[in-house]
């Protein structure tokens, strides 16, 4: 291949042909493939090549939170999982309620005219919700209808309360939002490939489905029978979610933050629960109705359809995905 000619076809002139020797054939092909076509003549500088080389050789550490399947689960196991979730989420909410007379449910009495509580929603009955914490449970009336719509059973919320007659009313509801992190910056440069067969591309992270779960270099083999995977690439969290198995919206899924990784059965909670502690940078859902790219609360959401039939290469920098 005549490298200079190829580059000229794309509108690039090489000032110093030496810089091309930094790339081997494979790398040059890749470099050419992803070089955007320039309508006006552009000079190819050494920095461009160096940057490209750095990109493709940068260290990417991939960590996957692998579910451990237990064969038997005790009532105490389940209790611990719930409590861990509750404790974690309430620690986020607590920070917003520090100056609002935060008490536990068993300490409620008329001596506090206003107070706040943190609880897990047990039941929703019209405008009245029942929440419980580690000490007890209680009924609270939610005044704000808009906020009421956002409340789900099992989510952990904070409520600022006051007494009205002998009932407790909440004039404010606080949800445990993810803490802001600049994860997006970190992975903005990434190209992620979701494949069902071996494909040679320059994706930084390759997720190959339907294999026994393991990690090899930047390749991640994943057993797609699990509905949810938490994949850490460097410090960024990518969630791979098979929406069929959770069967509700991603928004609700994020609110509850608790996932299990075994495929669906009625009341099947085989396997450990994941508690999504970090804010995901990216959520890739498989088997959704349509393919699109969205953002939820600054979280990149990429919905792919028929994942097992197609292969995708997702370029986060360009915010595109390509079917291969």
């Amino acid at each position, binding site marked *: 291949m005549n490298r200079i000619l190829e580059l000229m076809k794309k509108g690039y002139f090489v000032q110093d042909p030496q810089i091309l020797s930094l790339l081997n054939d494979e790398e040059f092909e890749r470099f050419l493939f992803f070089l955007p076509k320039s309508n006006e003549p552009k000079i190819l500088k050494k920095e461009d090549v160096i940057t490209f080389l750095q990109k493709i050789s940068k260290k990417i550490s991939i960590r996957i939170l692998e579910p451990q*399947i*237990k*064969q*038997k*689960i*005790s*009532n*105490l196991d*389940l*209790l611990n999982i*719930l*409590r861990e979730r*509750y404790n974690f989420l309430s620690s986020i909410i607590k920070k917003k309620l520090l100056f609002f007379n935060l008490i536990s449910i*068993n300490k*409620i*009495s008329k001596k506090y005219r206003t107070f706040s509580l943190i*609880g*897990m929603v*047990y*039941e929703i009955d019209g405008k009245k919700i029942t929440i*419980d*914490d*580690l*000490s*007890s*449970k*209680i*009924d609270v009336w939610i005044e704000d209808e808009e906020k009421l719509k956002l409340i*789900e*059973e*099992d989510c952990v919320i904070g409520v600022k309360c006051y007494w009205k007659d*002998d*009932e*407790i009313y909440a004039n404010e509801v606080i949800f445990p939002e993810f803490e802001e992190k600049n994860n997006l910056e970190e992975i903005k440069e990434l190209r992620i490939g979701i494949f069902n067969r071996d494909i040679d591309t320059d994706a930084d992270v390759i997720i190959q489905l339907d294999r026994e779960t393991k990690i090899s270099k930047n390749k991640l083999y994943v057993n797609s029978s699990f509905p949810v995977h938490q994949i850490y690439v460097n410090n960024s969290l990518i969630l791979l979610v098979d929406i069929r*198995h*959770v*069967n*509700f919206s991603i928004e609700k899924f994020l609110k*509850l933050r*608790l*996932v*299990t990784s075994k495929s*669906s*059965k*009625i*009341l*099947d*909670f*085989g396997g450990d629960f994941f508690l999504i502690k970090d804010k995901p940078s990216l959520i890739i859902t498989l088997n959704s109705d349509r393919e699109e790219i969205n953002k939820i609360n600054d979280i990149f959401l990429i919905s792919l359809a028929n994942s097992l039939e197609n292969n995708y290469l997702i370029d986060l920098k360009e915010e595109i995905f390509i079917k291969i």
Partner: protein
Amino acid sequence: MNVKFFLLDVDYDIVDDRPIIRIFGRDENGSSVTIFVKDFFPYFYVKVKDEEKFLEFLEKNFKNLIVKVDTVEKFLPIGYQERKTRLFRIFLKNPSKVPLVREELMLQDFVENTYEADILFKYRFMADKDLSGCKWYEVEGTFVNNTSVVFTNKKIEALNIKEIDRNEIPKFKILSIDIEVANKEGIPDPKTHPISIISLAFYPEYNGMRNLVLISKRVNVNLEYVLSFENEKKMLESFINIIKDYDPDFIIGYNINNFDIPYIIERLKQNKIKPYLGRAKKVAKSQRISEERYKNTIVGRVIIDFYDILKEFSKKGMFKTKRLGLGDVAKVLIGRGKEDVEHSEIIKLWNGDEKDLVRLINYAKTDAELVLEIMLSKDFISQYIEISRLSGLLLQDTLSGSESSRIEQFLLKEFNKNDFVIPNKPNKRELKEREKQEVKGAIVLEPKIGLHEFVAYLDFKSLYPSIIIEYNICPTTYLKNRKEGLDLIISPINTYFVSKNVREGIFPRVLKRLIEERDKIKKIMKDEKDPNKKILLEAKQLALKLLANAFYGYTGFLKARFFVADIANTITAYGRYWITNVKKFAEEIGYEIVYGDTDSIMVKTNAKSLEEAFKIGTELEKLINSKTPQNIKMKIEGIMKKILFVAKKKYVGYLFESENDNGKIVMKGIETIRRDWCELVSETLSKVIEILLITGSEREAFEYVKEVFRKLKNNEIDVEKLAIVKSISRPLNKYKGQQPHIELVKKMMRRGDPNIPGVGDRVSYVIVAGPQKIVERAESVEYVKKYKIPIDAEYYIYHQLLPPLERIFNAIGITPSQFITGTKQKSIIGILLQNGNGTNKNQSNVVIKEGFVNEINIKELVGFMCSKCNSVYKRMPLSGVCNLCNGEIVFYSANAKSKIISLN
């Protein structure tokens, strides 16, 4: 001269270094008597290894204490012996020195053992002279005038005493006592708080007075029965004089043993007055035996605490009452209640105006009166009198003593009569040894849980006594090891006893006599027309039955003198053997055994009518008895027209003792009255039992309960029926943790309520609805009624009604959750994994029959449930426990509960 008297009490005094026995009683003319007996000395037996060393030792160390030493030939108590053993018998001058000499001897290596070395002197005397409490005797002797040591009408020095055949009870003098202490706060302390009032009631009258109320301050009250004094000391002095003058046989009261008497004795001490409350110059003693219990002795008189007696009778089911307050029991027994004055009110009335004081005086007067009326209206004492007569104990010891003391005095006489000595009580080391030995109990068959019809109830007549008689079981026939050449009985557990042909044991002989005598009396009773005589006969036959039945328990009682593990085990082994055999036999001939416990079995007759059931039951009785030995026979107790088995030792049945009987509900292990239940619970439980057993069906009982729940939820139940009563037993700050009645009192204080209950008072409360903890939602009935506060239906359903009802309904296959409808069942997982709503199963179809299992497969999992009260939860509460009853939350399926679910 000769005097006939009824023996009430015995003690002794030391005069000129010698013991003098004093017998107290009442003669046939109504005079109180003291009979002095001289020249009777305490003694005990010693088995010796080296006679010379032994006699030397006695001479050297105890010469001054000993009256004489002689030798006798006696049989030893435990184990069959062909020949008697040579024993030394030591007579001492002073009964109080016996323990000292005994202990010293036991340390010597030339002494093998001592016998009868811990018999109370009075009982040593009574056994030797064949005297018993509550019998009539005739004493031949001379009057003694020159002694002020005793205060009875007559004083006699005895030459000879013999028993006379007389059954009637003399006309006793009864004094009922009640004291009131008006102190500011807390429980009265006898060291610091004086007695304010002593109320006395007399029968017969004392100087024409039925009542006297003594007051420890000068008052201007125009009541003829009131005597006021300058101070407490003067009042107490007068009190002592009244007792001496009136000279009662019985001192009675309600809880006097643990309050009034120890309090009076302490106050006498504090006022430096000698507590001579008895018939001799001997101080009345109050000995603390535990934190709240005392043992009191007043020489020559008998203390009868009706609280103890009625507690006993109520336990036996002879009358029903939820609370044992004097007013409550008086209402039930004699139809007369009393005004309730809370303890904290007493000080107010004491310091109040004339009207207040009169109210307090009458309150105290009633307390003393009521006990006296209870004693006179019903016969509670005859039974104890008969037991005294039979066992040989004094009446006071029969009332306050244990069953074992009754048997031991009885056996002392019987063994001595047959030339046997009896063992000492075990010391600490021996007790520890005994504790290591296992005594296996009776057999209890697994009941067929649920409701059954026409069940025959058969039991062995006096099984254990029958076994003792049949197999000649006795310490005197017991062989530790098998001996050849002897006619032996070998038990199912390979223990050995010589047969009747070799020697008839004392236990079997005595039991046979007791049983025969009882049968004789029962026959006489059938034809007896005089109701008074009938009462006495009834008491007699009951005493015989009690003593006979106490034999088995005695053999297994670790502290018994005659404890031999092998003997107790042999008796129960035969019991198990015969029940097992009878069960096998009944099943072989085609009957189903639905239950069996120790000495009874319940057999399903499959009859269609009572008549048929009785026929079958009687036939079965005959068949069984054709297979059992001569002394071990079964009898049909009755037919359970319906019986519900809940668990082992827990059932309710509708028993007919004969075809023409009216039928009565019998309950075992199931109470319908408990102090921490409100009236609604007792009422509902009784009604449910009635419906299940008598009037209706399971469906009806179920609907009845649902209706009660519905009424509760709609506040249609009378609040009074929901009241729970608890007393304040100590100052509020001494309570650890929260309790509803205490929280209520605190609330009342904060509100500034006028009548705040104090220590010793009872608090009545209901639990109202609200967001706080249950314990903080206690409210007084008046307050709830006044402000129309809704009650917490859930509390009453889950905490009061469901626990006892659940047991009953579980036994017939209905779970409490079926009463509680409308609980949506969801789980966090259902929400996460399914269609967002989980399953919405209506719980009323869930039946949990199996109870707990090791694990439930995930395919069968339904949801979460409280392991105690079966409340269903849509998810595991974060607290991990049921918010109604604190039970652990577990998984449940259609048929079972488990703490584990498995995934494959």
